């Protein structure tokens, strides 16, 4: 993986007292604080992250969080107040007009929330626009534009005007136009937000499908967490102009960096996203052959568990023992646990969804064991954890993260 886009300490201040506000930003004052002191609005506050080549990087935040400002600084539709924007190592923020224009023409294309199609041009002429401003001759640019439209299944509509097409089709044109000059980076600003939910889902699928063959570096802005989780390889969450967390969807859901992120993610249907891996805990185990009933009983007493998992020396799950059985074994003065090991324990893999776990655990007297392909024990899921994850209790300390 190579870094395609990197931003360092990117800051944007709107308003008159820019310098003064910038000083306050550097001192770490909050957005509200700076507004009260200087009247200047901090659009983006020292944002830094790296985007890898070929990934879909989602920037998510509520309106006013600075996400749209941030994406517009990447191609300098909005001039940054301070900070660096490195694309392939070249600093966009320091470029002159000519160099910037070349980057916009060759490397970075943009897709807009309200499609940004020119109403006075036909679909084909819209798609040609990027090539036209580069001075590509008419025959060549038409050929490329027609190919881009054909890929989107829109060639039959090429002579129509944008307002004759539905919203979903218009945004396909927006995407085809952005792809017509074969950019390396796509900036998508709330590209699907103006579409109704079913169309939006289709567009997300099409984007993912397209990405499988084209491998563009895509920076996607959205306020919709489900959309982020669906399409994002990694997600950056913004609040008040700051990037508060960057990580995969799983990381953000299971381990929100702060209360804000937690609140943001709380309306997601957790049961659909979380898997056994996210909520399993380190099991109390006892090794067969190595320890006898007395040790088992002692450890169960110490840890206040009524049962304990039994593994062999390679950590392969053999079953479990209950306190009552172990007590009997001690009374009968047995030296081995083999006779009292029960094997009726549910086993799942780490990718099992939490709503499946819920039914399993409901019918089971024992915890659910999480094992890998070789039956090696990697964790257990207990009833309280499943419910806890579903109702989102404080659980972070108990979690095993990758």
């Amino acid at each position, binding site marked *: 993986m190579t870094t395609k886009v990197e931003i360092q300490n990117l800051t944007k201040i709107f308003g008159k007292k820019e310098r003064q506000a910038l000083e306050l930003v550097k001192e770490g004052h909050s957005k509200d604080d700076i507004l009260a002191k200087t009247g200047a609005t901090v659009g983006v506050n020292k944002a830094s992250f790296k985007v890898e080549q070929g990934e879909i990087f989602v920037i998510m935040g509520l309106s006013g969080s600075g996400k749209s400002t941030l994406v517009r600084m990447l191609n300098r539709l909005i001039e940054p107040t301070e900070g660096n924007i490195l694309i392939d190592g070249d600093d966009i923020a320091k470029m002159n007009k000519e160099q910037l224009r070349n980057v*916009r023409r060759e490397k970075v294309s943009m897709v807009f*929330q*309200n499609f940004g199609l020119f109403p*006075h041009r036909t679909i084909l002429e819209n798609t040609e*626009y990027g090539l*036209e*401003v580069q001075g590509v001759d008419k025959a060549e640019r038409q050929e490329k534009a027609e190919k881009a439209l054909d890929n989107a299944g829109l060639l039959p509509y090429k002579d129509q005007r944008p307002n004759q097409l539905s919203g979903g089709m218009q945004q396909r044109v927006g995407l085809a136009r952005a792809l017509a000059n074969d950019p390396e980076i796509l*900036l998508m600003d709330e590209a699907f937000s103006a579409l109704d939910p079913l169309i939006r889902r289709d567009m997300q699928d099409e984007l993912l499908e397209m990405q499988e063959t084209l491998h563009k570096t895509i920076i996607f802005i959205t306020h919709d967490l489900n959309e982020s989780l669906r399409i994002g390889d990694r997600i950056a969450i913004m609040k008040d102009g700051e990037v508060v967390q960057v990580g995969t969807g799983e990381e953000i859901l299971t381990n929100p960096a702060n209360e804000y992120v937690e609140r943001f993610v709380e309306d997601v249907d957790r049961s659909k996203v979380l898997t056994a891996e996210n909520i399993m805990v380190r099991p109390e185990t006892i090794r067969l052959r190595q320890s006898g009933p007395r040790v088992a009983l002692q450890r169960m007493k110490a840890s206040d568990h009524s049962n304990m998992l039994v593994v062999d020396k390679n950590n392969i799950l053999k079953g479990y023992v209950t306190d009552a059985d172990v007590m009997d074994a001690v009374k009968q003065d047995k030296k081995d646990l083999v006779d009292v090991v029960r094997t009726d324990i549910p086993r799942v893999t780490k990718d099992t969804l939490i709503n499946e776990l819920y039914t399993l655990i409901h019918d089971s007297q024992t915890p659910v064991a999480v094992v890998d392909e070789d039956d090696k024990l990697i964790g257990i899921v207990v009833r309280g954890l499943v419910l806890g994850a579903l109702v989102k209790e404080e659980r972070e300390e108990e979690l095993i993260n990758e």
Partner: protein
Amino acid sequence: MNSTILDQIPRLPVSEWMANIITWLTQNLSWFFGAIRDGGSWTMDVLTDFLLWVHPIVFIVLLVALAFFASQKKLGLPIFTLLGLLYIYNQGLWEPLMYTITLVLIASLLSIIIGVPVGIWMAKSATANWIITPILDFMQTMPAFVYLIPAVAFFGIGMVPGVFSAVIFALPPTVRFTNLGIRQVDDEMIEAAESFGSTGSQRLFKVELPLAKATIMAGINQTVLLALSMVVIASMIGAPGLGERVINALQRAQVGPGFVAGFALVVLAIILDRVLQGFNKDKTK
């Protein structure tokens, strides 16, 4: 009236200043104004001669056809145009009509040639906008007759001072509407144009002007009608045409001829307005 402190302030010689400025301009730039006058009258004479050379029947047929297409092939406007022009010819006003058309045409063209670029400049530059807006306000609120005085001082009497005062009077709507039209272009259109690496002029000609076209055309429509009204007033300083007939009738208190010429002007105004509006609608669909 009692003498107050206000009367202690001596009268500022504003009218003397203005008179001095105009005198200085006429004396020192007479070669410049002379050249404009000569070039202008020559051009306008040629145009009027050409319009008069075209046979009235041909002229009427062409205008009716224009009205037909402008009104999207409906019949109302072409019929009105036909009857209106026949009426004007019938009343013996064909020659003054051609003079008036020449004046309106030239004044409107000059207003567009000056006004559209100035409007673009205002849309692009906050400073230009800040400076030019009050000048436009001044031009529009100053009574139209006042323009006649410097026009006479610079160009004497005739068609050229008529066009000069008409341009000053008719220019503001084109400037304002061009400015407005470009400023009204949706931010997302500008961002789209910019994001593909358009140069300033590509953005202007491929995106901003086409999208502002309807608004600019509305401004031009206003300009043409204002030019027509000023051309009538300019008859007071010797501009020929229908207005001249109206002024003559006014001075002699002749109701009949006054009405005939005045009605001819109304006909011309309606034709100009509806044809321009018709074409504007057609383009924006």
